[in-house]
């Protein structure tokens, strides 16, 4: 029964993905990568939540809470929540920059604003380096979720199928597919989470018991150590700032039909988070039924398996699988777009779609091979991926607001930030618990401004994006 429900939902998702092409000419690269900048607030909302609430929602958060208690939960929820106020301000600016420079990828913005090939390449390559492990994380999460749910597919088959489905989504319909499939995925995922949460409340007769019994197992309910307090605050700050500028998240803002749509959509984003109380209650229940889980990441799944009927487990499995596959699909689009538009030079617009798809196939095959063949090889990059691609933040700030920062400054800052992230991670340095990504970000800002001031550019810089009128009709 579980497998049947699972299969039906996955097939349904393919049907929706294919249908989403209807009435749109996806041979046009702008239509293919950013839906011709035509999405309504509702589609933008679903594309966003499809990407934000990835497999990590069902695997990473419950696992983190199970292992570390409230201090993990507080920063995880805190940075997502506070990303929306940040997005309320910089989201419309990202869209405006995208419109002004006809951007379909993040490097397109830097290419358009600075006309500097070396900077474009540095942005592209650093984005690619950190995006590839982000995709692997989805594959790995899928394996954990599906095997804990009792699907005894071999990892090879599971990874291969996930890669194929992700490719089918986007091969046919481009970015419209993940937006439409996300409606399906989020309906089922929220349904599964809420039902699991309610089932726990019924099983233990009320919420207070879940937490008091977990506390009896020694789970912390406060953030007491000074270092943990510093870590919580700096991590929330850093990740909330970087949330919307990653090479994965910025492009979905380009699909919106206007700045107004981007800004208005941010208002409702926090409401999706109301499913988290149910998810957290379900995760805490794992303490009561399985206090010594070998794999903390399976906390939510263990609860589901113990309380839900088989057909609902099929819904949980499909929700988990779709959330991983959806993110793979959007990563593929981001990578394909960057390869065909930024890495390789002078591919004409008309053949960019073909090259994008070739790049995607290569990316998926390499990713599958790395996941299966060398799972630990990429561990460092996986652990530093978020820190790495958040280093684009100072560059964006320069594009939005600065008349002084030069392309050399942006490139120098970005490289400094990326190197700092890797050095801090590898040396395991600890500065009173301050998030190492934030330290790298501060260095990045300092170098960006210093280099710009010392080597003042002779070329004239374009007016900052934020200083133009909100509807810039004179732009290219």
């Amino acid at each position, binding site marked *: 029964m579980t497998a049947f429900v699972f299969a039906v939902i996955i097939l349904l998702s393919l049907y929706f993905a294919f249908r989403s092409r209807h009435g749109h000419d996806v041979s046009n690269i702008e239509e293919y990568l950013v839906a011709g900048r035509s999405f309504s607030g509702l589609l933008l909302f679903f594309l966003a939540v499809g990407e934000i609430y990835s497999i990590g929602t069902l695997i990473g958060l419950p696992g983190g809470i199970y292992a570390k208690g409230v201090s993990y*939960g507080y920063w995880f*929820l805190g940075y997502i929540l506070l990303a929306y106020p940040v997005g309320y*301000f910089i989201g419309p600016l990202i869209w405006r920059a995208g419109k002004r420079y006809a951007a379909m990828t993040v490097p397109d913005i830097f290419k358009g604003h600075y006309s500097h090939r070396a900077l474009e390449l540095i942005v592209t390559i650093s984005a690619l380096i950190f995006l590839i492990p982000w995709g692997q994380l989805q594959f790995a999460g899928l394996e954990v979720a599906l095997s804990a749910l009792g699907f005894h597919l071999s990892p090879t088959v599971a990874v291969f199928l996930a890669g194929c489905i992700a490719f089918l989504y986007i091969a046919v319909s481009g970015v419209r597919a993940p937006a439409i499939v996300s409606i399906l995925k989020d309906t089922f995922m929220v349904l599964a989470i809420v039902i699991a949460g309610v089932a726990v409340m019924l099983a233990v007769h009320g919420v*207070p018991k*879940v937490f*008091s019994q977990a506390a009896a197992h020694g789970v912390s309910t406060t953030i007491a150590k000074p270092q943990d307090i510093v870590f919580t*605050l700096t991590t929330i700050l850093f990740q909330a700032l970087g949330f919307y500028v990653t090479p994965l998240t910025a492009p979905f803002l380009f699909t919106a*039909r206007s700045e107004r749509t981007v800004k208005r959509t941010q208002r409702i984003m926090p409401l999706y988070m109301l499913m988290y109380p149910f998810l957290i209650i379900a995760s805490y229940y794992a303490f009561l039924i399985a206090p010594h889980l070998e794999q903390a990441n399976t906390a939510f799944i263990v609860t589901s398996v113990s309380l839900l009927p088989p057909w609902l487990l099929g819904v949980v499995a499909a929700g988990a699988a779709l959330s991983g596959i959806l993110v793979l699909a959007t990563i593929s689009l981001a990578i394909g777009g960057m390869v065909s538009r930024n890495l390789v030079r002078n591919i004409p617009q008309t053949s960019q779609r073909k090259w994008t798809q070739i790049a995607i196939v290569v990316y998926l095959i390499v990713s599958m091979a790395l996941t299966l063949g060398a799972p630990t090889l990429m561990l460092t990059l996986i652990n530093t991926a978020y820190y790495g691609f958040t280093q684009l933040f100072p560059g964006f700030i320069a594009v939005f607001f600065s008349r002084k920062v030069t392309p050399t400054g942006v490139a120098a800052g970005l490289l400094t930030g990326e190197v700092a992230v890797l050095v801090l991670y590898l040396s395991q340095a600890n500065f009173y618990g301050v998030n190492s990504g934030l330290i790298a970000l501060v260095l990045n800002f300092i170098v960006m401004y210093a280099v710009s001031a010392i080597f003042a550019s002779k070329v004239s810089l374009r007016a900052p994006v934020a200083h133009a009128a909100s509807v810039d009709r004179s732009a290219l």
Partner: protein
Amino acid sequence: MSTKKRKRGSFIVAVILPFVAIFAVVPFSSQFDFTVLGLPFLYFWMFLWFPLTALCLSVAWYVFDRHDYPTEEGADEQ
């Protein structure tokens, strides 16, 4: 209200308020070792700010920002 004043107002309501709310309780969390509605205080506080943040953003939009983002001609008819 001038544009500058509107922008400042919007920034205070939409960004400063939620950030302060989420940050301020962390250093004192050991003093909040009790439950509200059965939830440990930190979870209760976080969950409370999901709808409150949406409210802050909506207030900023209706009071300060919406006139600066005119509907583009034809955009909503598509």
